């Protein structure tokens, strides 16, 4: 509802379009929509889809920053479109593109097969030889939880992969989220799978491809700090390798 006498304010969005059936190369399409101060970019895109151009394809779900579905490049920065407020860009134009470093399937939808393939590689589950206690659960103190909790907050939004220049140059790099996920289990007191994960993390295109640019942590919407997880993994893996070298008989 508009206040009497308030002029219509509009904002312009330049949105990346890629429609493989119709045109082999991508292009940008410009839309001018009403500006609402409390709208996020996702609201703007939904408005476009509902009222201006039903052909626009994109992913979204919870619209409140917990599902990780709506990651996009907004003015060149990887963001959740539900967390990017129009008022932070107004009156400038907003450029919306699909998440960087992933192949584009259609418009703002990326093919995320590579990410999905990498996650299970780090054995992201509690690895234990014995069976769980009958009619009970593994006990864990708040201090033990605190050791890995931060790394468990990942919402799999892939903004970190879009931000990482190493992943851009080397798609085989296992990537920030996968390593943070591995650390989440390595630091879990219930887990005994560190050695299994070492084979993946310490292998080629594991943690050693990372040069601590740090952009992954900067863009993470869940404050996981994947860069910190990777550096911790490097230190612990380096010390393990030295120990292996000095005590080759000690490997159990």
């Amino acid at each position, binding site marked *: 509802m508009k206040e009497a006498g308030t002029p219509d304010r509009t904002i312009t969005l330049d949105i990346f379009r890629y429609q493989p059936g119709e045109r082999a190369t991508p292009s940008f399409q410009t839309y001018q929509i009403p500006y609402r101060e409390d709208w996020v970019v996702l609201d703007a895109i939904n408005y476009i889809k509902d009222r201006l151009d039903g052909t626009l394809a994109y992913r979204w779900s919870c619209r409140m920053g917990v599902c990780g579905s709506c990651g996009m490049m907004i003015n060149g920065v990887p963001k959740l479109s539900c967390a990017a407020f129009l008022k932070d860009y107004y009156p400038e134009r907003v450029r919306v593109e699909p998440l960087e470093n992933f192949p584009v399937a259609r418009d703002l939808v990326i093919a995320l097969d590579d990410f999905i393939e990498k996650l299970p590689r780090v054995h992201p589950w509690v690895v234990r030889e014995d069976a769980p206690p009958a009619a009970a659960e593994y006990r864990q103190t708040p201090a033990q939880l605190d050791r890995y909790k931060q790394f468990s907050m990942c919402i799999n939004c892939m903004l970190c992969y879009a931000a990482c220049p190493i992943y851009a140059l080397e798609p085989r790099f296992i990537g920030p989220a996968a390593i943070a996920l591995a650390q989440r289990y390595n630091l879990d007191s219930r887990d005994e799978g560190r050695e299994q994960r070492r084979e993946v993390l310490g292998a080629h295109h594991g943690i050693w491809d990372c040069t601590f640019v*740090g*952009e992954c942590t900067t863009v993470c919407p869940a404050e996981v700090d994947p860069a910190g997880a990777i550096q911790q993994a490097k230190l612990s893996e380096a010390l393990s390798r030295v120990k292996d070298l000095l005590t080759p008989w000690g490997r159990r």
Partner: protein
Amino acid sequence: MGAALTRMTTYRRPVPFAWWLRNRGYALFVVRELTSVFVGGYALVLLLLLRSLADGPDSYAAFLATLRAPAALIFHAVALAAAVYHSITWFRLAPMAVALRVGGRRVPGGLIVAANYAAWGALSVALAWLVLRG
């Protein structure tokens, strides 16, 4: 008879050669990495100074004279800026590799950074005193 699955025709956006110019974070990252050239470069100059020392008082005095040349002073000025930027970024980032925990709680990052700066300051003063006391 199900429908055949069609493969997506995906589009791969090319990575620009000057990717590091794309945003401020990347550019500062490259500046940070290039400080290593001056860290290594200064170590080389220090080694040359020590060699001049080993070669005798005349060569030592001659080396000090070359250190007064404008080129040498400019190099050292740039190297100093690079070394300081290295220190600042190192103290901010290196503690992230160590999740220090005391009594079950994580030591706050600010404390570790402050401790690093204190060590830096103390060592610098100690070095200056060691070398300059007449």
